[in-house]
């Protein structure tokens, strides 16, 4: 996951890059019920750093992409729950197992987000599975 790069970001950049991950974590209390909130928080931070350095933008992009993925799976879970409560869907084993799966992924994402925030602040470049390569595809690799 971690990769050492030749580019040495300054302290200000390290803090900003770290904050891009913290944005999703700060909103987590509300985001669990409204998955879109985490995404909005990360998106706002991303948009606010469009003119920042490449290092900061790369990490904002990675954070945003991971939030989009988690928001999609969470929205499916919330919609499914609402359709059971207010609609005519039945509670099935698939529903429960989906909830457990997304909960596990949310917890895992939370842990790696905190980890990413901490190690990025320390100056180490971190590329996640899926989102790291995707960010590289969209953004180009950080040299």
């Amino acid at each position, binding site marked *: 996951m971690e990769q050492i790069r030749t580019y040495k970001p300054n302290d200000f950049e390290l803090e900003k890059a770290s904050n891009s991950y913290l944005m999703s974590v700060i909103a987590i209390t509300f985001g669990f019920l409204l998955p879109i909130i985490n995404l909005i928080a990360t998106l706002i931070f991303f948009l606010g750093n469009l003119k920042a350095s490449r290092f900061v933008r790369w990490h904002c992009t990675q954070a945003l992409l991971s939030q989009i993925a988690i928001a999609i*799976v969470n929205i499916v879970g919330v919609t499914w729950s609402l359709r059971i409560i207010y609609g005519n869907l*039945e509670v099935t*084993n698939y529903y*429960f197992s989906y909830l457990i799966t997304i909960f596990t992924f949310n917890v895992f994402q939370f842990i790696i987000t905190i980890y990413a925030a901490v190690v990025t602040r320390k100056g180490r470049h971190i590329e996640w599975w899926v989102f790291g*390569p995707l960010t590289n595809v969209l953004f180009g690799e950080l040299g």
Partner: protein
Amino acid sequence: MVNKFFFHFVTFLCLFFGTWFLLSKIDYNGSKSLLILSKSSEEKLGKEIVKYIKESNEVIYKDSITDVMDIIKNRIYLSNKIDTSKVKILIVINKEINAFAIPGNTIIVYTGIIDFCDNPEELASILAHESAHIECNHITRKLKEEIGISILTVISAGNSSSGIIREIVKTLSSTAFDRKMEEQADTVAVRYLAKANIDPSHFADLLFRLSKKSDFADRFEWISTHPGSKERTAEILKLSKKYPFKPEAMFDSETWHMFKKKVKIEEEQDHRRAEPSY
């Protein structure tokens, strides 16, 4: 770079769906758990309920009446490959326009609803609908929700008071199935009727006439657990287009009217028996 992304992405998807699939193998609903009524308990409970109904109501046993009911039942069951001995029908003298299924695969048909039906196809629709509730296992599910599994188990073991049995009969005979179960029973009933070459529009006609008779369902539809009869009628007509059929008459009108007349005679005889003699 792109290859690396696709590899990671596919692995992630496999991990996500694999986890979901494996976890779905665990039974969270408890449908296979102890929270079910066993077949024998269900039958015992059904026997207790039948015993109570026979003690508190007059039941018609006359062959000339029960045979007609059996003909209607067999027409539906044989066409749908359902074992005809699986379900028993009990005709109870009661002016209420009602029919309901009870545990142990018995359908209680009140003479009031026989009188209300204009033709045998309408009576067939009622039997089809109640049979659908039995096939879809709605009765014990409903009782479990309303009364609770522990009480049902106690009753099926023979430790019951008539008060509890009365409550169960009241629960089953009232329009207490939820919207989803009623919709499912309607869908299955339409299929049964079509396969038996009975025009499902008779079912729609019956519901329409029932809705006109009772304003309650329409006015209080928003708190009712049943879909409004107008909606049901429209839905049934829509469903009947899905299943092809060639309508075949059940009996001639003379047989039907004779049947209704005999039922009426039984009702009157029961009424006379119930009148105090001075």
